[in-house]
């Protein structure tokens, strides 16, 4: 159904952008509220969940070559149930996409443009996403390839540059929380990481299929290091408890940077990173939901769904949360169950187990 082809590296980089671009802004404070200075351990532990998700989705894709997640759901669960789950997945894509847009607008409001109504950011970024997706998967995957570099450099700079404010003794004592609490917090961190199952929608568009599980694992691990880096840096600069009290510790971290009097306002770097990253994240979710809707209903094309689904996504993001506290509450309490523990890892894992008992079917028109 997707006419374009992307390379394995492009997919891995796309997934990296998708996974990295919101978690670094939310996880430090949400995690620090639960486990204070040990928050970085949860980020590393969450890598395990992410790797599991990546392995499961690649294993499923290997079993059903040339099919997307939505396409092989009916093959595994039978047609009616498969379609129902397909619909649920599409809704998941849409809903998570809506959350991302919401977070994006909220972040911009707080950081650089406090007076602009959030709806304005949502509409403009959505319009650009629509334009990008209309140009085809190949095009925005390519642009992502070069811009991810900017995103990562900005993030690493913000992690490293406040070195003169850091006091690593604030990280002590290490692992001073019950393992249960650490694991449950890592589920939260892992929920973002489990967005790696989006790869299930892109894998059929790959031009070759060799190292994809390796690539996805590398990207999940890499994200683990970046998130842990942000958290270590934030805790070292602010301390464990204050990190949890800040609205966006990563952003506060950027404000701490001051080098030779000139580079003392580097938070704009972070805003650029956020904007680019979130843009591609929204693109990815919009793409998946468009493709998903088309495949659930068995359409031959999906491009025509782009406009209605963009509008729907926009409407959902405008209406799904009343305010920031509700969003934060959702992220810290509901999101692990909605992400990792259902759609992100558990459902795909169950699907794979069921698929093991199904005969391998050779389907796919060339």
């Amino acid at each position, binding site marked *: 159904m997707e006419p374009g082809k992307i390379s394995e590296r492009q997919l891995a980089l796309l997934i990296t952008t998708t996974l990295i671009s919101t978690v670094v802004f939310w996880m430090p404070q949400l995690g620090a509220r639960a486990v204070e200075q040990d928050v970085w351990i949860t980020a590393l532990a969450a890598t395990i969940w992410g790797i599991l998700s990546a392995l499961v989705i690649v294993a499923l894709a290997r079993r059903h070559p040339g099919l997307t997640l939505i396409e092989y759901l009916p093959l595994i669960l039978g047609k009616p149930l498969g379609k129902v789950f397909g619909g649920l997945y599409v809704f998941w894509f849409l809903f998570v996409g809506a959350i991302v847009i919401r977070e994006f607008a909220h972040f911009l409001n707080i950081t*650089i443009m406090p007076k602009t109504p959030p709806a304005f950011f949502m509409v403009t970024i959505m319009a650009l996403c629509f334009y*990008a997706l209309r*140009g085809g998967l190949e095009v925005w995957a*390519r642009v992502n390839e070069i811009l991810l570099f900017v995103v990562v450099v900005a993030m690493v700079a913000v992690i490293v540059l406040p070195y003169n404010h850091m006091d690593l003794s604030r990280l002590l004592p290490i692992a001073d929380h019950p393992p249960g609490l650490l694991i449950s917090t890592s589920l939260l961190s892992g929920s973002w990481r489990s967005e790696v199952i989006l790869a299930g929608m892109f894998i059929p568009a790959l031009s070759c299929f060799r190292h994809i599980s390796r690539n996805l694992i590398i990207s999940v691990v890499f994200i683990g290091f970046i998130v842990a880096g942000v958290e270590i840096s934030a805790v070292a600069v602010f301390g464990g408890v204050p990190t949890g009290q800040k609205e966006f510790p990563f952003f506060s971290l950027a404000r701490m940077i001051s080098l030779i*009097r000139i580079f003392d306002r580097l938070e704009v770097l972070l*805003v*650029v990173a956020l*904007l680019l990253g979130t843009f591609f994240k929204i693109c990815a979710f919009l793409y998946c939901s468009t493709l998903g809707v088309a495949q659930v209903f068995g359409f031959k094309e999906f491009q025509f769904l782009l406009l209605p689904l963009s509008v729907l996504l926009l409407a959902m993001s405008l209406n799904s949360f009343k305010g920031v506290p509700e969003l934060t509450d959702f992220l810290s309490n509901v999101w692990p169950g909605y992400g990792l523990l259902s759609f992100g890892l558990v459902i795909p894992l169950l699907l794979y187990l069921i698929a093991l008992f199904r005969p391998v079917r050779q389907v796919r028109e060339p």
Partner: protein
Amino acid sequence: MLHFLRSINSKAKKGGPSGPRKIPPPRKFKEISSNLADNEAYLRQEFANISDIVFRRFYAGEVKFLAVWFDGLINNRVSQDIFRALMLDIPDKRLLEAPKEKRADFINLRLMPFYDTQKAIDLEEIKHWILASKMVLLVDGCPSGLMIDAENRPQRPISEPIVEPTVLGPHDGFVENIRVNTALIRSRLGDAMLKSEDYIIGRRTSTPVTLMYVADIANPGIIEEARRRISRIDIDGVLDSSYIKEMIQDRVFTVFPLIKGTERPDIVVADLLEGRFALVVDGSPQVLTAPSIFIEFLQATDDYYINPMVVWFIRSLRYLAIFIATNLVGLYVALITYHQEMIPIPLVFSIAGTREIVPFPVFFDALFLLIVFELLWESSIRLPRVVGAAINIVGALILGEAAVQSSLVSPTLVIVIAVTAVANFALGSGYDLALAVRIIRLAILAAGGILGFYGIALVSLFFLLHMAGLRSFGVPYFEPLAPLISKEMKDTIYRAPHWDFNERPALIAGKDTTRDNTPPPAPPANNSFFNARSKKR
């Protein structure tokens, strides 16, 4: 030789031969009559009401001749030679003894000391030759005529390229004559695989266009596509290669140049060697080469002639220049309007000091100065030489000095615009790109003025996405960057030394992809050859 008789819409053959193809016969056909008077009458009727045509009747011995040409398009000295050969030095007997129908052949083979002649049996063809600024000779009693290439169209001598001057490297540039231009290319690339195909475009101008490519490098699919796009053209006149450019490019609605035009033969040859094709259009000193990619426009010819250890710096300057030319004004406006807190403290005071007395918002100031700059640019192109000094004074004194002194604009802004203007012309060889940058700059200024950094990021992202979606003859426009092809990064921000350019660009070159097998220069470690000499001594 140019075959002027190709019908305009001839279909390109699929997988056709690489050489110039056969000329289809002209649609109308009128045989040359044996009676010279009939032919003259026909031609006079066809060229009625044309004052600059010359019909010259003369006798060579007892044989009647008619020469026809357009005045001014024929080399006078050469035409005198023709008349001398026929009227004075003619061996009458043999011409008279030759059968009447063979007279044209006889003259062609024995009496015409010109390298380019051609026999024709069709008056329509004769007419075309005359229109194509050749001389035509008709003989009484012979049903065929003779074209003699004594063409001497008014033309400019070969000179230094005007748009793309360089410090190092060759200094010759293309002119308006297609033959001179193809000769400049051919003389640099003496390879039988450099093919050229002629097309006649323009129902009325009948402009010759030559498609050149190296057959065993270029991608045959791209060449076939080029043929297809060229033969689609149906226009009354082609006055410059940019006409062709607009009609064969992949996407219409884009500010970016998708096909490169250049005045420099060395660039064209380099492009041909990378597997591109060139389109030489008569009457235009700009030769088109395609497929083109974006970074080509940020490269200059000098880059390949100067030390590669320096090129990376000059190229980085250019990348910086395009960033400044597009973004600086917008960033400045956004900074002053929305993000004052991001300006370093010492700078805030100096900028605020200069802005204190300026009555307008910085956005309007910037727009005003930018438009003034664009006006200056535009007027300095159209300027008659004699009034140049006046505009210079107005530009420098009135706009620079007076605008600041009257506190219409702040001095900082003047600097910003000046840097932008300088950067606009430091982009390498691409004047086309400099034009695109003007539009992008306006868009970014508007976005920065309305939305601050957010708007600038949105618009930049938009242009990036737009650029990544463009293609030039199927080749992704943003090629070695998006899609990212690490193998081809040898000619982006740094240029590899020539011995290291092993591969031609993979997406452009179709076949023979090895460019260079030279091993890296490796003098023997202990300089033994040098020591050997000194020992002898």
